[in-house]
């Protein structure tokens, strides 16, 4: 029985805005963040972003540990690409000290950073396509990451929290057979990427959900401080590796992919291409590593070898000083940024001349993108939040530190 307008029971349907709160713990959010949306029908009218659910006081902890002890906290900032964070933090401290590490150490930092970039992009693409329902692509891509982690595990003894860098160099040299392991891992990753490419790139459903959703203009992206793939998807070719080459990035050839629409599909394609470029960089780098040490030979900065520590009093004293009081970092301040997988990851370190930092500030790489989600999805459908959130690669650890 249908109710017509003349019936006394007839009521107008309510036309108020509907408020929907996505998160903090939500299936389509691979992170804890609260999106308070106001919908008119299914169109997003207004949205606010609530963050801070993974605030772990990284910056406060750094002020209570010595320079080397803080490296373990940097692992857990962007936990998809821990080696890149380690290297960025210690490079900032080294800039403050005014030292440059031997070239072999710089090459190692470059190689682990690029390995981390492959792993990070694999996770990002995998997680975002899983939320769109492409579960088999997720399985392929996450398995690709396992092969990268296998190499990192063998290199430093840990799959995720690598803690490979020290102030003044790298903790370990490469092991024998590293090149072979990397080549095997890359062969596996390339197979997985090929599979994912076949499953996703020209998939009609995937294309329709990614193309022209989460669009941001070039001016807005710059104004909001976007960096990394999210900025490059709008056509700006800003990449710290090209703009201010750190370590030995000026000695390798690679291309910086850019998009032109600034939408989710562009960001997806850029990530796929960046993985290819990262593998290309590593392959070039493996052929160029010179012989030598991976750390400086200054006992005020880097631990003396064990032979010195056990047999000579100077070595023992230096060991004690570095372990108990931290490396000798002069008074001053420095800012050093690298191109982490997510964008410009910079550290602003302030020292008061003691072994403990006075202030460490990590630039939250994904904060601009996260805070700009309302701008990117306003006016589109509720379902467009999911691919947009996936493609900006929000990582709670560095967003809220």
């Amino acid at each position: 029985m249908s109710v017509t307008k003349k019936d006394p029971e007839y009521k107008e349907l309510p036309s108020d805005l509907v408020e929907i709160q996505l998160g903090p713990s939500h299936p389509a959010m691979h992170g804890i963040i609260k999106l308070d949306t106001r919908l008119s029908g299914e169109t997003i009218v207004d949205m606010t972003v609530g963050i801070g659910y993974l605030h772990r006081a990284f910056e406060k902890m750094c002020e209570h540990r010595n320079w080397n002890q803080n490296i373990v906290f940097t692992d857990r900032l962007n936990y998809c690409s821990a080696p890149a964070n380690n290297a960025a933090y210690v490079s900032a401290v080294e800039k403050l000290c005014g030292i440059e590490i031997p070239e072999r150490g710089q090459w190692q930092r470059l190689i682990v950073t690029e390995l981390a970039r492959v792993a990070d992009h694999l996770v990002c693409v995998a997680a975002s396509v899983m939320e769109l329902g492409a579960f088999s692509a997720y399985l392929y891509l996450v398995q690709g990451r396992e092969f990268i982690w296998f190499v990192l595990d063998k290199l430093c003894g840990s799959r995720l929290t690598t803690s490979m860098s020290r102030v003044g160099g790298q903790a370990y040299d490469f092991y024998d057979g590293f090149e072979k392991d990397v080549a095997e891992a890359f062969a596996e990753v390339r197979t997985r990427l090929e599979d994912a490419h076949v499953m996703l790139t020209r998939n009609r459903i995937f294309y329709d959900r990614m193309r022209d959703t989460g669009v941001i203009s070039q001016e807005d992206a710059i104004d909001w401080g976007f960096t990394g793939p999210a900025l490059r998807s709008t056509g700006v070719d800003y990449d710290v590796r090209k703009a201010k080459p750190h370590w030995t990035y000026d000695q390798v050839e690679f291309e910086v992919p850019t998009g032109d629409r600034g939408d989710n599909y562009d960001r997806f394609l850029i990530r796929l291409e960046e993985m290819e470029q990262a593998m290309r960089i590593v392959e070039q780098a493996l052929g160029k590593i010179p012989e030598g040490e991976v750390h400086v030979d200054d006992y005020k900065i880097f631990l003396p070898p064990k032979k010195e520590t056990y047999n000579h009093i100077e070595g023992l004293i230096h060991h004690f000083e570095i372990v108990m009081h931290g490396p000798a970092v002069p008074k001053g301040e420095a800012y050093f940024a690298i191109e982490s997988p997510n964008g410009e990851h910079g550290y602003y370190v302030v020292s008061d001349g003691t072994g403990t930092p006075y202030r460490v500030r990590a630039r939250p790489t994904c904060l601009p993108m996260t805070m700009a989600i309302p701008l990117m999805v306003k006016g589109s459908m509720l379902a467009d939040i999911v691919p947009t959130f996936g493609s900006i690669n929000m990582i709670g650890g560095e967003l809220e530190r």
Partner: protein
Amino acid sequence: MLKKVVAELNKAAKDCVLEEIEVPDDDRLRIDRKHIKKACQTLKNAADLDFKMLTDLTCVDYMGEDERFEVVYQLYSLSKNYRLRLKVRVPEGEKVDTVSDVWAIANALEREVWDMFGVEFAGHPNLTRILLYDQFEGHPLRKDYPLKKHQPIVPLRTPIETEDDPPYNWTPFEKRGRKHPVRKLHVD
């Protein structure tokens, strides 16, 4: 490049640059607090400077000095490929002008500085807590906030009396009077 920046800034507001430090790849300027907004607008809009990007905005607490806080702006010019750091000293209790209408991202970053340090930004549209919750008392990144000073979880607001930073002042829920149904666990 730094000379050009300083000339441009001094043209916009007289004597707004208090100190200039030239370090390769790490140039810094100390700006008068009253002129920071004007300086930022100039830096962003001048065609031959073009600091379109605010990469970071943070603060350092120099406790014990006259002007306690130092707000730090990391700027980047895409077209000139040049980084610049602006620094503004702010005494405790004083305000500094917001730049959230110059760069959009400054809104969130200034909220974070207020949350963590308690530095107020005059003219900010929504200066509320961002990383912590509204009921949090104090500003944790200040040097006088103890590292391990836990505050009660939100639904219950009975502040823990602490004199100093005792080794551990975490009080379990039950002791705070929260009704907490603990399930009886199977004992093997």
